[in-house]
């Protein structure tokens, strides 16, 4: 590996990250300079502008870069894989910001400045997680996201729930981080490098050279640690409590952006470093020996998430369990490991992002209005606002995987792949739990259409929330009818096959 002068890199490819960093810094300084009583709504719009600007440069990178661009031996890496995830993060945070503006108007959170720049730093952490191929930067990104989220969850200082959930989040997050770091230390100890592409070769040497147990131990620890971020079994218990206590836009952020970032890192790290392991017979260890364990985690998440959701009366907790189940579904491509696992997971995550953000926007509206997070607060919603109720129905159908929605195509795609790889029991669990999930998703639908509400007064619908709801509902529906457009876009612009060391061994 040749050492390059730090100024010899073309830093313009890092503009998306640098812009977010710049805006976060500027916002924190502005917040200091502004008077105590000044309305900080302007910060929200600034943050949104930063996110959009950053998104533009991600698109510019997609167009101008034909091959991955690597900084400092892959400490940072601009590639199709990262770009795809960055677009997901940026749109997620943009939605979060729009929702937040409407949330703030109700005056529950007074510390607006922190709120916005912490969202941006969390976003920066997520972006680093998606665009790095080095243990150290991956970990830094993970921590940046985690620490920002801990604070965001606890921002409602005077709420008991918020304090409880923030505390739980910190403690369980800390434990999970310890697991991840412990696993990484074994990886470094065995491989002597933090670069993922080099690790891929070194770990396979170590595996063949009698250290198989330690390699697998490292794998297990990293998987357990990272299952926290994606709220999959065995580190899923925090989700219901934290989701319940956090402000609703932050719940949406955790459920979508933070989880997606977790997946970005899971795929990059585990796939990048462990793909090269070869069993004595010549087969791939990752595909043959480890994928059953991933399947078990996926199946357990689906079963626990979907069955626990049945009993919830608090909608946020229900969404948390539903999110655990969704994490199980998104792990399916990782368990089945085809060369297209990237397309599958990105498509599913995209569908999940649309449906979740739409659903959380509706939740926020309803909770605000009813001052309650119970299932009953949805009663009679259809009569109060048909538009919102119909949109919510689309989101729920998409999450349940019923045609004609994006969620159906996403699930169908995972399912095709699982059956094609003869993972029959996993596909059976997938289908069975989907049917179970009908029950609680339709429970909300039942409330909206079939139960009389406490009031018939029209639901106030702020413009920003309406924008998010209509946009996500339309997109969910359209993608459900013409999914080909998304597949083509992903294939044409992200082409991830050269982003993983194991596939082309493009290590430098």
């Amino acid at each position: 590996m040749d050492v390059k002068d730090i100024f010899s890199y073309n830093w313009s490819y890092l503009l998306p990250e640098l812009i977010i960093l710049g805006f976060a810094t500027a916002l924190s300084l502005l917040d200091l300079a502004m008077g105590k009583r000044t309305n900080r709504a302007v910060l929200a719009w600034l943050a949104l502008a930063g996110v959009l600007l950053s998104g533009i440069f991600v698109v510019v990178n997609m167009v101008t870069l034909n091959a991955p661009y690597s900084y400092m031996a892959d400490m940072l890496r601009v590639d199709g894989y990262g770009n795809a995830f960055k677009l997901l993060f940026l749109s997620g945070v943009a939605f979060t910001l729009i929702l937040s503006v409407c949330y703030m108007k109700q005056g529950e959170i007074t510390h607006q400045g922190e709120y916005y720049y912490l969202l941006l730093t969390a976003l920066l952490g997520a972006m680093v997680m998606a665009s790095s191929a080095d243990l150290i930067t991956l970990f830094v990104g993970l921590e940046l996201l985690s620490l920002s989220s801990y604070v965001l969850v606890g921002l409602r200082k005077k709420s008991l729930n918020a304090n409880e959930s923030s505390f739980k989040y910190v403690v369980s997050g800390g434990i999970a981080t310890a697991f991840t770091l412990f696993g990484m230390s074994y990886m470094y100890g065995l491989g002597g490098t933090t670069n993922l592409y080099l690790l891929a070769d070194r770990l396979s040497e170590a595996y063949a050279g009698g250290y198989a147990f330690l390699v697998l131990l490292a794998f297990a620890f990293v998987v357990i640690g990272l299952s926290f971020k994606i709220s999959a079994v065995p580190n899923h218990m925090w989700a219901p409590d934290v989701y319940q206590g956090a402000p609703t836009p932050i719940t949406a952020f955790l459920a979508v952006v933070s989880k997606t970032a977790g997946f970005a890192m899971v795929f990059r790290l585990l796939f990048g470093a462990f793909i090269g392991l070869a069993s004595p017979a010549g087969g791939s260890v990752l595909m043959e020996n480890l994928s059953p364990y991933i399947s078990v985690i996926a199946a357990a998440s689906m079963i626990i998430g979907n069955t626990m959701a049945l009993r919830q009366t608090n909608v946020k907790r229900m969404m948390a369990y539903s999110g655990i189940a969704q994490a199980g579904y998104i792990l399916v491509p990782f368990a089945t490991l085809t060369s297209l696992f990237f397309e599958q997971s990105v498509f599913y995550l995209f569908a999940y992002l649309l449906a979740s953000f739409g659903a959380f926007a509706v939740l926020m509206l309803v909770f605000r209005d009813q001052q309650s997070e119970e299932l009953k607060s949805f009663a009679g919603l259809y009569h109060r606002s048909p538009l919102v109720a119909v949109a919510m129905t689309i989101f729920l159908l998409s999450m349940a995987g019923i045609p004609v929605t994006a969620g159906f195509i996403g699930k169908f795609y995972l399912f095709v792949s699982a059956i094609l790889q003869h993972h029959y029991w996993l596909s059976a669990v997938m289908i069975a739990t989907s049917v179970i999930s009908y029950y609680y998703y339709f429970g909300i639908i039942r409330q909206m259409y079939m139960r009389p509400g406490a009031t018939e007064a029209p639901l106030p619908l702020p413009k920003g929330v309406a924008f998010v709801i209509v946009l996500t509902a339309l997109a969910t529906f359209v993608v459900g009818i013409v999914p080909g457009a998304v597949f083509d876009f992903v294939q044409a612009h992200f082409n991830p096959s050269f982003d993983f060391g194991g596939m082309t061994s493009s290590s430098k």
Partner: protein
Amino acid sequence: MPNSYLLSLITLSPLVAIVILAFVPKNQGGILKQIGILGTLLPLVLSFLLFANFNYGDPHMQFVEKVNWISIPVGNPQMGEVFSFTINYEMGVDGVSMPLIVLTAIIGTLAAVASWQIKKRLKEYFILFHLLLIGMFGVFAAQNLLLFFIFFELTLVPMYFLIGIWGYSDRERAANTFLLYNGVGSAIMLIAFLIIYLTIPGVNGNPTMNFGELAAALSTPNNPMLQHVSPSLLFGLFLALFIAFGIKLPVFPFHTWMLKVHVQAPPSIVMIHSGILLKMGAYGLLRIGIGFFPEQAYQFATWMAVLGLINVLYGAVLAFVQKDLKMVLAYSSISHMGIVLLGFAAMNSIGFQGAIFQVISHGFISALMFFLIGVIWERTETSMISELGGLAKSMPFISGVLLAAAMASLGLPGMSGFISEFLAFLGLFGVKPVMAAVGTLGIILTAVYLLRAVLRTTFGPMPDRYQGAADAQPIEVIPMVVLLGFIILIGIYPAVLSEPLQETLKNIVPIVPGMGG
């Protein structure tokens, strides 16, 4: 040439009404009803066009449409290699599905007329009603597995609402039961479809979802593409499909959801449910279950006959002891669907014809029956047999039609029920005489329970409160006369149905092993 997209036009034509309804204010009840009813005339006219242009001599799919729809890239475990699965939008009809589309259009229009008694939330009701129509047309017109599945699921969601919002007192539980049973059925169906898609390539070796190509591949003797497919997998697939469609039909242990729906859903929706939705199960069983796996179906035929017998007798016996007219008819439906199974179990051309005749005939008869129940409910607010009685005095016309419907249902010669039961049993007698003999008991029982129920409602002492009840209004007379007309038409001129069937069944039947005429 409009023929090339006529099926899509029929399937999507209810959208016109949906769009118009969406712009009518919801307090304009009269206008909403008119649009809701007039909207169903569009698919009706188009489906008559389909009927008129259908070529009886052609055993193949007609009005075929094919557009490239989704191209899914799929990877294999050897990293890097990527191939694409293309899923087409494919429509087409043959002699089996064409009559079903016409049936759907007719019953759709009449059920819309019957919806005049819906009192609340008319706008949503008619929007969902038309969505349901789209799903049903699509199921019968779809020519590939994914499209079939999507339309099949598309009927699920509107039905859930239609039962859950406009049903009787226990409507929500009925809607949930409906959703869960059918959800399980769809799940099993999806698994089976995908395994078929991924393990059974078309004749040319490419993966395909097209009905015709799959059936051809599976019936090619010693197909080299199928050497890796074990016979037990094929049998398992057939069994999974049998269960999936059996839940819809419904076959005996899976029937409880259907009783709840029959009792709780509003009469206009039960007309559709009993008249068409149950038939989707029979259609799927024939087109996909037996159509793809004739050998496996043949091996399973004895069990199919046993299950059919259980349906026939269990339904008939339980119908006899019911106190609620709706329950009598619900069990009667189970009994009659048993005859469809018996016709399939015969595995010969006559049996199949009987089964399809039964599907269509029961569609008309049960739609008529439930229409009448709705009409009677309007006047008496009950469907309990013990509380009714002597209706013939105050409503002679309605009672007369009810008696006629019962006659059709119990198989009086000259009406459609006779032809279908006769053909189904004729087919079965040729191969399984003992079972057929036992099955005919069901016909006798049918006569007993239907006459008991109908006579007790129409004759005998009449409670005073029904003294002033009016006989049928013109808007009620039309559906009764039309439905009765079709029942008698099929009864005295069965060729209207058997002609299109004949050629198509020739196409399905020769691949059944051990075929008798």
